[in-house]
């Protein structure tokens, strides 16, 4: 019944199914309903996110490098990502000798699951959220840790030393960067007094100076560093350049997914974009007012109060901006060395994060 409460749509589906078969809705129907909803979400959310992300990345990278980027499949190369997906599906799925078969096969699914499960708590628009968990932020951070498990499984089970090294880097990096990421996420949570992303977003309702990044001017001294911190640590948690150490292709060939081929490789490839997108979304919900527009039209009493399309538009704009900035950054910066990644985490970001937390606590008390 928990599932039914969390996703009303699946509850309706379960009741409908049970009615169809002339039975009382029980947990089995709820589970089937939830699965169906999940499948639909996978189809309508995951595919555009993954494929759109891949396309945007390749196109933008191309243009930044004075190239054209994909432009052959479909208009402006829009179908390139689809073609790649089909290619990956058609490729042979290789399980090399010496691999730990169950782990090797399961790891991509775990990574995929962890990356896309984060979408559950994203407040896309007023009222449009899969599950408004009270601990939404906490849940989101926990999922990042879950992805690490999948990657370690992949690295270990590949029976390849480069993969193992990549997995070890992943553990060292992501586990470390959860600290600054958590600290930075604490600041808005502290200000808004809630861990629910919807509550934090609604706390920022109103014109632009209500956004936590620059709330009433003086909050900026704590929130601007916290935002940069969240962004940087987010890059590291999503393994994006300059923190793409686990798969650093010039050092570890392809890191943890060296041995993967076909759709299993795709299962590692798409979550990267899902992770980028969900981190951008959380960052925009935490600091940039989420689905609220800068003029305050969506605030209580505003012209578009509760209009889901207006909220979605602004959420989409903010998230896309952050998403694109991650891509631009990737194609500008060289890669950091592994010990410097650790240095950056523990000696730069962590102190800044603690400072931000103390500062926002003080502001909360004073303001």
């Amino acid at each position, binding site marked *: 019944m928990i599932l039914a409460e969390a996703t009303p749509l699946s509850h309706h589906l379960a009741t409908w199914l049970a009615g169809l078969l002339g039975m009382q809705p029980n947990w089995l129907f709820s589970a089937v309903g939830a699965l169906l909803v999940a499948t639909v979400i996978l189809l309508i959310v995951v595919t555009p996110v993954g494929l759109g992300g891949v396309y945007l990345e390749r196109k933008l990278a191309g243009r930044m490098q*004075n190239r054209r980027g994909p432009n052959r499949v479909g208009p402006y190369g829009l179908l390139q990502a689809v073609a790649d997906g089909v290619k990956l599906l058609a490729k042979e799925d290789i399980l090399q000798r010496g691999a730990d078969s169950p782990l090797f096969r399961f790891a991509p699914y775990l990574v995929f699951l962890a990356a896309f499960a984060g979408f559950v708590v994203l407040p896309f628009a007023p009222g449009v959220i899969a599950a408004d968990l009270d601990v939404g932020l906490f849940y989101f951070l926990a999922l990042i840790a879950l992805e690490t498990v999948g990657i370690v499984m992949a690295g270990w089970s590949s029976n390849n030393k480069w993969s193992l090294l990549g997995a070890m880097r992943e553990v060292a990096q992501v586990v470390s960067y959860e600290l600054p990421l958590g600290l930075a996420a604490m600041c808005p949570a502290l200000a808004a007094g809630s861990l629910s992303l919807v509550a934090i977003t609604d706390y920022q309702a109103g014109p632009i100076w209500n956004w936590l990044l620059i709330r009433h001017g003086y909050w900026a001294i704590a929130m601007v560093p916290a935002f940069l911190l969240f962004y940087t640590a987010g890059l590291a948690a999503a393994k994006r350049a300059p923190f793409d150490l686990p798969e650093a292709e010039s050092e570890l060939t392809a890191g943890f997914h060296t041995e993967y081929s076909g759709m299993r490789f795709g299962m590692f490839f798409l979550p990267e974009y899902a992770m980028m997108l969900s981190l951008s979304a959380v960052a925009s919900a935490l600091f940039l007012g989420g689905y609220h527009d800068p003029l305050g039209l969506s605030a209580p009493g505003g012209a578009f109060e509760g209009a889901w399309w207006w909220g979605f538009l602004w959420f989409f704009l903010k998230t896309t901006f952050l998403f694109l900035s991650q891509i*631009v950054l990737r194609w500008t910066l060289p890669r950091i060395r592994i010990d410097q990644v650790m240095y950056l985490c523990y000696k*730069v970001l962590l102190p800044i994060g603690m400072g931000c937390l103390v500062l926002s606590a003080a502001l909360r008390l004073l303001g």
Partner: protein
Amino acid sequence: MKALALWVNRVWMGLKTTWIGLTITVPYIFRRPYTLQYPEEVPEIPPTERGLHVFEIDKCIACDQCAKICPVDCITIEAEGKGKTARIRTFEIDYSKCLFCALCCEPCPTECIHMGPQFDLVGYTRDEVIIDYADRENPRCFSEGEKIPYEIAPFARK
């Protein structure tokens, strides 16, 4: 205190050089791409290009000079008759061996073999890249009176 100043400087330099990098790369998004769309747009091929050979079959006297100088022995010539009246039967160039060094063009007494502008040749088997230039159907084999449709620069030294 000094260590703190160094720390602040490092953080600042990190942010600053990242910003400088972005000011270089981001404007490129709005500029014209440099690349060519290859099969449709072909780069300008200079007349000196050492591409696939161009052969003027009626000038050839089958003297075998080109085959002799070839460092990889990729030219096979078979001819009927001898001397100035010789007529060529096969003139095969094995492009799986060819170095494109243009040494074969230099000793030719009648200047019948040149390096042309075509730079691509594909085949599914090795036999497909052995090309017979004595075959008058070959687009790069020119009979007497046919005009070679592109400019071919001569060597400074013959």
